[in-house]
């Protein structure tokens, strides 16, 4: 086998537990020429704000950025579906030369008139940053005329990393909340759910848990999102932050300005989901009934899925998994969940982890595990082969790597259609990886399961 070389400049971003002594380097921009799995600042902002279903999302730039993101996320809405449209100012050469402000303004007026959104987000893409359109001014002008919030999202693709993209989205959300005209009267047992995007209906699962615990969800940011709900967000007593990479910034801002504390949770896997719910219940210790209900809920839910999981575990025991996801927090939960299923994690990486994330990952992983920051297809393939994984957990861009190498795959990104959050989500997750790992087709794949194939045919 031809060995895959790792670029010199990337060596510090790859760490093998038990072998390497250095601190993994992270939070840098991707190396020029490396086929990074990362997208851009615009991508991150769009992901966070996307599920707000009664807002207009207008992408200011040439067509590609909008075209490639049309309805690609699995964020469901229980009502309006404006978020599933792809609006773009589709800048042409003359706009680039003379500026796109007029076109943007015109587009906003027309769209707001036609679709009557509750708010509008204007995403600035790379070109807009270069041609220097004063998007803020246009937004202010339009907002004053139409009477809804029109918010610029400064997400020029080249201006930083995914972290900056989240900050841009958080800033837009904070402005939206801040512009609320409602009196900020507190809702006693009210929480906001942050960093939950209703992929495959996950928000509904989580909200239902809280409802059964006796807790009121004031706003979800941004799963199945509505502008009005988000504008009421200051009425909550607690912010519960999942996907901390994306929305911690907003939680911190809300703590500072509105005095709403926040806790970090994960709804993935039995262990993490249960502790998320218990943590929230403990916060409301003043109402003991909540903890009682929570305990009952967790018991019921766990009992409902255990028989299935026990059966699945028999087939998965000892199988090796590789994980490559966007945020490191997702990776923590995945490691725990896989461990619960009896599997071993041999590779784990993220697009956006920070120092603390990687320190924790190092602690959680067994010796020999490869830890990767901002990887590319070559590196991923290299270590999947070296570690002989049976399963790869990632997103759409990682799928063909797994399949070409003849191993199972599970989509754990924004584009999937099946909910993986909560207890029911854990069952879906286990079923999905069970389905893929135990598929008989691997026996036919060259390289891996050649046993049953005549030697002469098995040359690939």
């Amino acid at each position, binding site marked *: 086998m*031809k060995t*895959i*070389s790792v*670029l010199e400049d990337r060596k510090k971003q790859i760490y093998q537990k038990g072998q390497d002594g250095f601190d993994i380097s992270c939070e840098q*921009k*991707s*190396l*020029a*020429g*490396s*086929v*990074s799995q*990362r*997208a*851009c*600042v*615009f*991508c991150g902002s769009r992901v966070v704000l996307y599920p707000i279903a009664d807002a207009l999302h207008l992408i200011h730039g*040439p*067509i*590609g*950025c*909008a075209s*490639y*993101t*049309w*309805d690609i996320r699995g964020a469901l809405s229980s009502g309006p579906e404006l978020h*599933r*449209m*792809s*609006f773009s*100012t*589709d800048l*042409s050469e003359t706009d*680039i030369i003379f500026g796109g402000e007029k076109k943007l303004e015109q587009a906003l007026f*027309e*769209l707001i008139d036609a679709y009557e959104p509750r708010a509008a987000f204007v995403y600035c893409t*790379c*070109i807009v*940053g270069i041609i220097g359109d004063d998007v803020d001014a246009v937004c202010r002008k339009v907002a004053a005329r139409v009477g809804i919030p029109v918010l610029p999202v400064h997400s020029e*693709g*080249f*201006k*930083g990393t995914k972290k900056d993209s989240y900050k841009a989205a958080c800033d837009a959300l904070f402005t939206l909340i801040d512009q609320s005209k409602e009196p900020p009267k507190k809702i006693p047992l009210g929480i906001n759910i942050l960093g939950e995007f209703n992929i495959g209906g996950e928000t509904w699962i989580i909200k239902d848990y809280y409802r059964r615990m006796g807790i009121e969800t004031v706003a979800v940011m941004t799963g199945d999102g509505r502008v009005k709900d988000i504008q009421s967000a200051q009425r909550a007593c607690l912010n519960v932050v999942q996907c901390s990479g994306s929305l911690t910034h907003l939680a911190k801002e809300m703590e500072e300005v509105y005095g709403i504390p926040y806790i970090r949770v994960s709804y993935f896997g039995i262990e993490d989901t249960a502790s998320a719910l218990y943590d929230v219940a403990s916060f409301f210790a003043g109402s003991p009934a909540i903890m009682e209900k929570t305990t009952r809920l967790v018991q019921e839910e766990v009992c409902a899925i255990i028989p299935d999981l026990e059966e699945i575990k028999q087939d998965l025991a000892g199988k090796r998994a590789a994980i490559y996801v966007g945020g490191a927090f997702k990776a923590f939960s995945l490691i725990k969940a896989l461990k619960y299923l009896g599997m071993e994690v041999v590779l784990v990486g993220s697009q956006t982890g920070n120092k603390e994330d990687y320190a924790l990952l190092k602690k959680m992983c067994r010796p020999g595990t490869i830890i990767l920051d901002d990887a590319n*297809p*070559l590196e991923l*393939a*290299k270590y999947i*082969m070296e570690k002989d994984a049976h399963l790869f957990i990632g997103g*759409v*861009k990682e*799928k*063909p790597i797994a399949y*070409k190498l003849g191993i199972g795959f599970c989509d754990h990104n924004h584009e999937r259609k099946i909910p993986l959050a909560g207890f029911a989500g854990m069952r879906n997750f286990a079923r999905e990886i069970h389905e893929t790992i135990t598929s008989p087709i691997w026996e036919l*794949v*060259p*390289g*891996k399961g050649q046993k049953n194939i005549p030697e002469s045919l098995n*040359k*690939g």
Partner: protein
Amino acid sequence: MKTKAYTATRNACKMCTPLGAALVFHGIEGTIPLLHGSQGCSTYMRRYMISHFKEPVDIASSNFSEETAIFGGGANLKQAIENVSRQYAPEMIGIATTCLSETIGDDVPMILEKMGNQINQTALVHVSTPSFSGTHVDGFHGAVRAVVGQCNPLSNRTKYTPKTKKRINLFPGMLSNEDLRHLKEIFTDLNIDLILLPDYSERLEGPSWVEYQAIQKGGTPIRDIRKMNASTGSMEFGTILARFAGKGEKSAAALLKKRFDVPWESLGIPIGVKATDIFFSVMERLTLKSMPEKYKKQRGRLIDAYVDGNKYVSKKRAIVYGEEDFVAAMAGFLAEIGIIPVLCASGGNSGLLKQALSELIPQNIFKQVEVHNGMDFTRMEQQARELSPDFVIGNSKGYTMARHLNIPLVRVGFPIHDRLGGSRILHIGYQGTQHLFDTIVNTLLQTRQDTSKIGYAYM
């Protein structure tokens, strides 16, 4: 109905220029595409192509940062080229400039020139692909032309060696993998050498790996591209492209004609009996070889099927959309079987589609056809409502529209991201037409069955 003119594009019926270029580079042996610009563009395009081809699609990026955008991308580009060359050891790096590098005005040709247009034996080819003036199709043709141009400099006329065997350059445009394989089969049957550019049919649809492949096998060999200047002739698919090419603007075949006087034949994508007949007659003209028996039989079976199915398709109304050349070919085929392509729409904006269609489609049918350039799906859907179509034919992007209109969608073209096997759809030749015809008839029959109160089992 006149739909209100909209400033914004709502659900675009086009993709951006570098995507087409990246696809072409994936159709050249040992070549890696490198987008000069910010990271997001290449990641999005990769993601997009992966969901159509279901294959690894590596596209490198020079990963602009803020400083790069301000001070220029020269250093980034150089570093990117070095890193790509180190990691992939490619034969060629195909560099396409995104909107960003085009806008800040990086002089890529000069940067490459300074590097001698190569790095460690790796050829560096550049195509200018600003998306604010074109669509993915322009990027596609631009890349083909750039590669042919660079591999065939005027000074490097290949020695003409008289041969018994003819050799044809074929520029098929943006076809499916199966289409490309079918073309190769036809040329093998005719015993004519073929240089097909691009040819991603193996690379973007290979077997699982026994050994790791940094760059998948397949693609047009670069040494073949260098020989194009001495071929018997060039064929190029695309009626719209031909109109541009007439002005010598976009076409690789026009370039070979101009530089080396290689005879050049332009024709529409061969979909339908008439268009495929033209394809074989052009072949005959260029190579003096007539249609093999096998294809005569396919043609015969196809026309026989037309007869069997005539009543189910006659006077049916279809909405056709996609890239302009594809729409033209598809509309021509539909008209041939008596379906009225009531709305022909493209996100492309050449301004040439209407004229092309009026020449392709008989006047009695053309009178009933609306043609729209620069269209998006939202306007298309509004327009479609007025036209009571029976079905929609085009890529997966029309799914939402079809769903709203509550009529079936026949999937053809690119991208097909909500089905398996988009790259295995055969559109061209008698065999491809057969496949399309059967699919359309069966789709219409299925609708009849589904909406019939009783349901029926024999036809």
